[in-house]
């Protein structure tokens, strides 16, 4: 560990002797997970089509980490991208899939049951400074990002902070940070002796739609792969079991569906992390 950098400990913790990263308000040893760009828009699925892909150009020159939340039913509920709760659950005739990032844009696919009429899916997105598998390169500057020659900055070891690329900065006060709000845990019971679904909501009370992520696991239930926390949505073998999550200005919802014909049952344990960031501003 270097004896350099910026450290500020929480109350009653010694910044000089603590090794616990959670004891620090600021520790430049650890990079912030910075939001370089966030925004909102709407995906149009035109009359006669069952699907459409929305692309957001970012201009960074490398494939950045990213996330989408999509209001599939245009009713103020922003689902985690990839959600496919299915119309059979009575939930929604819409779904999203194939979120992707590449050197020029991020995108997702919206689909629906049927082809009649134009439909809009509002969405929100966040683009982070870190790469997603691809190597770094290009301009490193997202479209619309205004570099600042002021503020608080610290770079990774060996890099001149004045010349550092965005992703080489551990602290950059020119970026919005992913601010932690709260973690909620809750369980939903399931039993695939017959078709079924279950949903539950958690009030956050923020009066805006916060960025959030959710995970779920089946614990040690026989015949299920989700023995640890899996990022929702989940829905892979052994099918069919799906879990999806959404947020609106008041609460976060978790919805699961399953098909009958089996004998497994148990509790799907969900963990929701809510951030203070308003996904729509």
């Amino acid at each position: 560990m270097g004896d350099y950098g910026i450290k500020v400990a929480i109350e009653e913790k010694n910044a000089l002797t603590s090794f616990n990263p959670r004891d620090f308000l600021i520790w430049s040893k650890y990079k912030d997970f910075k939001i370089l760009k966030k925004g909102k828009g709407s995906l149009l699925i035109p009359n006669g089509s069952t699907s459409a892909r929305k692309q957001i150009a970012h201009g960074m020159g490398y494939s950045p980490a990213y996330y989408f939340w999509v209001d599939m039913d245009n009713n103020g509920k922003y689902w985690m991208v990839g959600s496919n709760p299915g119309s059979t659950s009575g939930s929604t005739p819409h779904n999203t899939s194939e979120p992707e990032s590449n050197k020029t844009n991020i995108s997702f696919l919206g689909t629906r049951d049927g082809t009649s009429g134009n439909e809009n899916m509002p969405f929100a997105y966040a683009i982070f400074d870190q790469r997603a598998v691809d190597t770094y390169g290009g301009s490193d500057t997202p479209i619309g990002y205004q570099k600042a020659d002021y503020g608080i900055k610290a770079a990774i070891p060996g890099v001149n902070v004045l010349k550092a690329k965005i992703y080489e900065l551990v602290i950059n006060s020119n970026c919005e940070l992913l601010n932690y709000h709260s973690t909620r845990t809750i369980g939903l019971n399931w039993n695939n002796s017959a078709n079924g679904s279950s949903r539950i909501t958690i009030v956050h009370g923020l009066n805006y739609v916060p960025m959030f992520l959710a995970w779920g696991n089946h614990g040690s239930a026989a015949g299920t792969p989700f023995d640890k926390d899996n990022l929702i949505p989940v829905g892979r073998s052994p099918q069919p079991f799906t879990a999806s999550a959404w947020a609106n200005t008041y609460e976060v919802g978790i919805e699961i569906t399953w098909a009958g014909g089996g004998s497994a049952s148990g509790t799907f344990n969900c963990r929701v992390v809510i951030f203070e960031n308003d996904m729509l501003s």
Partner: protein
Amino acid sequence: MNYGIKAAKKGVDVFTADIKDKQTFNSGRYVEKIKEVFEVSENTTEVDFRHGLNYTPVLIDYRNLNSSGDTNDVGISASRIDNFEVILTNVGAVAGRGIIGYVLFQAGS
């Protein structure tokens, strides 16, 4: 909290900036920082890493959808995590496809 280090977006009064969208730095808030970056680039279906935290942190991970070319489409992956380890899960692994996982922790919490 009326002390500490604060910064706001350009053109915004730092004393009145809202944490939900205008503040860019506040030493009194919990923020997600990167504890570990785990990466595999081989034709591997599952690799486990210990993250060293005694609680279950945030994990977000991505996997490369292409084995060649320069498009490098990257999807959101489906790896698993608990209070001990991360298992990067390269579903449908193909040679050359990589996966990267960011384990985040809440500084100051």
